[in-house]
C-alpha cells in the first residue's frame, strides 16, 4: 500500500487543529491558576465563546467582530466569576461549577435560533505554499490566524511567566497572597486580571470550534473539551510546554480513533472514545513525576480565598 506523504501531513495538520482549542483554553486557565485561582468554569466560558462567535458572525457578517466578540463574551462571563470569588469571597470550586452549568444553559437558549445555519469560511494564511514542501507543507501552511496564535501561545506564556516582571508578580500571588499583599502588591487586582485573561482565552477557544473547526452551531458542541483543558493544566504541572504535548496527544488519539472506527477495527467504540482521555493523563503523569518540580510549579494558594483583614 502506498501512502501519499502529503496525506500523512494532512493527518498531522488535522491533529494539530483539534489540539488548538485545548491549547488556548489551557494556557488561559494556567495563568488564572498560577495566580492562585481555580476556575472550573472553562467549559462554560468556552461554550459561551462558541455561541457568541457564531451568533455575531451570522448577525454582523464580520469575522473580526465575531472573534473579538467571543473573547469579550469570555471576559464578561469570567467577570461574574471574578466578582463572586474575589470580591464576595465565594468558594472557587462551587462558583466555577455554577459558571459551567450557567454557560451551557444560556448558550443553548441563545443558540436555538442558530441551529442549522451554515457557517462562513474563515480565511487561511499561506494557502499557496501548501504544496511547495512535501509533508511539511500541509502541516505548516494554510491555517487560520488563530491556529498560529495557539501554537505560539505556550511559548509566549512560558516566557511571560519566567522572564517578565508581571509574570513574576502573578507567580508570587499564587505562591503566597499574604506575602504579596505585605509587599504592597494588589492581590485582588492581579487575580481579577488573570481570571479575565483566562476567560478571554476560553472564549477564543470556543470561537475556534464554532467558526473554524466545525463552522456551525450545535448545542453542547464543546463536548467536554473545557474539562480536558482543565485536566491538562493540572497534569502538565502548570507547565505551558507540557500542555502543548498533552493537547497534541489528546488531539492525535481523538483523530486516530476516528480513523480506526472508520476502518472498522474490532475494538469496542466506547473503549476507543475513552482512549484519548486515559492515555493523555497517563503520559502527562509519567513525564511530570519529579516531585520537587511539582512542588516548585504548583501554586501553593490554588483555590484558596484570600481576603485582607485589618
Amino acid at each position, binding site marked *: 500500500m502506498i501512502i501519499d506523504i502529503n496525506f500523512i501531513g494532512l493527518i498531522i495538520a488535522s491533529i494539530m487543529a483539534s489540539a488548538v482549542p485545548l491549547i488556548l483554553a489551557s494556557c488561559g486557565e494556567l495563568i488564572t491558576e498560577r495566580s492562585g485561582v481555580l476556575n472550573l468554569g472553562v467549559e462554560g466560558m468556552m461554550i459561551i465563546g462558541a455561541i457568541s462567535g457564531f451568533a455575531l458572525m451570522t448577525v454582523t457578517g464580520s469575522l473580526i467582530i465575531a472573534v473579538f466578540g467571543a473573547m469579550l463574551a469570555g471576559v464578561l462571563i469570567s467577570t461574574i466569576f471574578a466578582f463572586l470569588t474575589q470580591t464576595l469571597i465565594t468558594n472557587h470550586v462551587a462558583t466555577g461549577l455554577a459558571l459551567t452549568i450557567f454557560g451551557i444553559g444560556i448558550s443553548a437558549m441563545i443558540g436555538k435560533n442558530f441551529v442549522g445555519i451554515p457557517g462562513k469560511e474563515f480565511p487561511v494564511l499561506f494557502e499557496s505554499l501548501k504544496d511547495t514542501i512535501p509533508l511539511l507543507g500541509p502541516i505548516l501552511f494554510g491555517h487560520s490566524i488563530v491556529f498560529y496564535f495557539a501554537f505560539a501561545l505556550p511559548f509566549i506564556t512560558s516566557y511571560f511567566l519566567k522572564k517578565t*516582571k508581571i509574570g*513574576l*508578580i502573578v*507567580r*508570587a500571588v499564587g*505562591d*503566597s497572597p*499574604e*506575602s*504579596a*499583599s*505585605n*509587599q*504592597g*502588591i494588589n492581590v485582588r487586582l492581579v487575580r481579577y486580571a488573570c481570571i479575565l485573561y483566562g476567560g478571554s482565552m476560553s472564549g477564543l477557544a470556543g470561537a475556534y470550534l464554532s467558526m473554524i473547526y466545525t463552522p456551525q452551531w450545535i448545542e453542547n458542541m464543546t463536548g467536554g473539551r473545557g474539562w480536558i483543558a482543565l485536566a491538562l493544566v493540572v497534569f502538565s504541572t502548570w507547565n505551558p510546554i507540557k500542555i502543548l504535548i498533552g493537547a497534541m496527544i489528546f488531539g492525535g488519539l481523538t483523530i486516530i480513533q476516528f480513523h480506526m472506527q472508520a476502518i472498522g477495527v474490532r475494538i469496542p467504540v466506547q473503549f476507543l472514545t475513552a482512549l484519548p482521555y486515559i492515555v493523555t493523563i497517563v503520559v502527562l503523569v509519567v513525564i511530570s513525576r519529579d516531585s520537587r518540580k511539582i*512542588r*516548585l*510549579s*504548583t501554586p*501553593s494558594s490554588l483555590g484558596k480565598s484570600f481576603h485582607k483583614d*485589618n
Partner: protein
Amino acid sequence: MNTNLKISNVTKIYPGCVANDNVSLEFNSGKIYALLGENGAGKSTLVKILSGVIIPDEGKIYLNENNLKLNSPLDAKKNDIGMVFQHFNLFETLSVFENLIIDSDEERESLREKIDSIMKKYNFSIDLDIPVLNLSAGQKQKVEIIRCLIRNPKVLIMDEPTSVLTEQETSELFLSLKKFSEEGILIIYITHKLKEVMELCDEVAVMRRGKLVSVSEIKNENIESLANKMVGQNLKTIRKKKEKTSSDQLINIINLNFISEDPFETNLSDINFSVNRGECLGIAGISGNGQSELFQVLSGEIISDKNSIEFNKNYIGDLNPQERREYLMAFSPEDRLEQAAIPQMAIFENVALNNFKSSNFFNNGLINENKIKEHSKKIISDFNVNTDNIELKSQFLSGGNLQKLIIGRELITSPDLLICFNPTWGLDVGAINYIHETLIKINEQNKSIILISTDTDELLKLSDKISVIHKGKLSKIMNADEVTSEKLGILMGGGN
C-alpha cells in the same frame, strides 16, 4: 544622620480586646531598642502599625518630625521603614533573586551587584538562584534582611527573629544587628526572651495587656526585674517540696523496644523504668534522640508488645491512646496545634475530642452540646485560660492559653498519670510559671508525671527522678537532688 521615630498616642481596638492602649514611644538611631512583652501584650500589633500592615484607630507616627501616613506596607517601605516579620514574607517557590527583585524598581544587573555587595559587607552567603524553600530558617531570615537593606532603611524592625533560629544563627544575627546599628540604622527588636534583651539591646520598653508599662535603660535592669515588669506581678520562684514519695508503683516499662521503618526516626532499645505514685520522672535529652518516639510509644500512638507496659497492674502495651485513657492515663503532646488540638475547631469541640468514658458527651451518637460547653467553661475557669468565648477556634488562642486548655482538658478527668512532652516550649514566663505550678500540684495530689523535656532547668525544677535519653537509650535513673545541670549536659552529649 540621626533618625528619630516617634509613636504618639496610638490606640488599636479589636472586638473584645484592646491591642494597643494609648501607646507613646520615642526612638533614636544609634541604639538598639527592645520591645518586650508576653504573647498577646500588643507588641506585634504595634510594629504592624509601624510597618503599615495594620491601620491604628487613633494616634500618629512621626519620622524625623514628619507625620507619616502608613496605610499599606508600601507606605512604610517608601518611608524607609523595613520590617522582618516573625513569619517570613517570602515566596517559597520563587528563587531568592526573584523574591528580591519583585518589589524593586532596579534593573536585574544593578540589583544583583547591590545584593552581592550587601552580602559581602555583612558576610552572608546565600545562593541567589535556588528556590527559597531549599533555604534554612536562618538563611530565609537573611533574605528578608537583605530585602530591607536594599532600600537603605532608616528603621529596621525585627519581630521575634530568633524563634526559628539555632544558637549559632542567633549569635550571627546579633552581630549583624549591632553592625547595622553602628551604621546608623535604628533597630527595634521585639521579643519575649529576656536573655536576648540583656545581651543585645541598649534600651527596653515593656508592654503588658496593650499598655506601655515602662521604658528604661538595660544597664538599670536585670532578668528578674524585667520578668516582673513583663508579667506584672512578683514572680514566685517555684521550687518543688522534695518529700519522700510513696513506693507504690504505678507504671512499669519492661524491656521496651521500638524499631522504626522511617530512617529519620530513632529506634528505642531496652527501655526500662518505673514511676511511683506521686512522683515526677523527668527525661532529659537533646531533641531528636528518641523523645518523640518514646512519647508515642507511651501514649499508644505507636503500639508495642502487650507486656512491655504495665500500668496499675494491667498490661496495656497493645492499647491505643483512647483505650489507655480509660485506664486513667493522660497525654500532652509536643506540638500543640498539630497533635494536641485541631486548629480550625472551636474550643469546646476540642474539649469533646477527649471523649473519656464517664463524660456523657455523646448520647446515642448525638452530640450533647450543653454538657460539653458546661465542661469547657469549667476547664477555662479552673485552668486560667484567658478567654470567655468557648466557641473561639483554637488556632486563635495564644500558645500559653492553648497549653493551659490542653493540660486542663487532660487533668479534669483526674488521671493517675500525665505524660507530657515539652509542655512549656515557646511559652512566655507567665504561662511557664502557671504550667509548672499545675504540674507540681498534680504530684501533691499523689498523681504521677512523666515529663519529657529538652529544657534542663525545667526538669531540675519539677522532677523527683531524672534519666537522660541519648540515641534511643535511657541512662540510669538518678535522684533529682543528686544531679546537676553539668552532669545532665555530659549525659545528653553521650558521655558517662
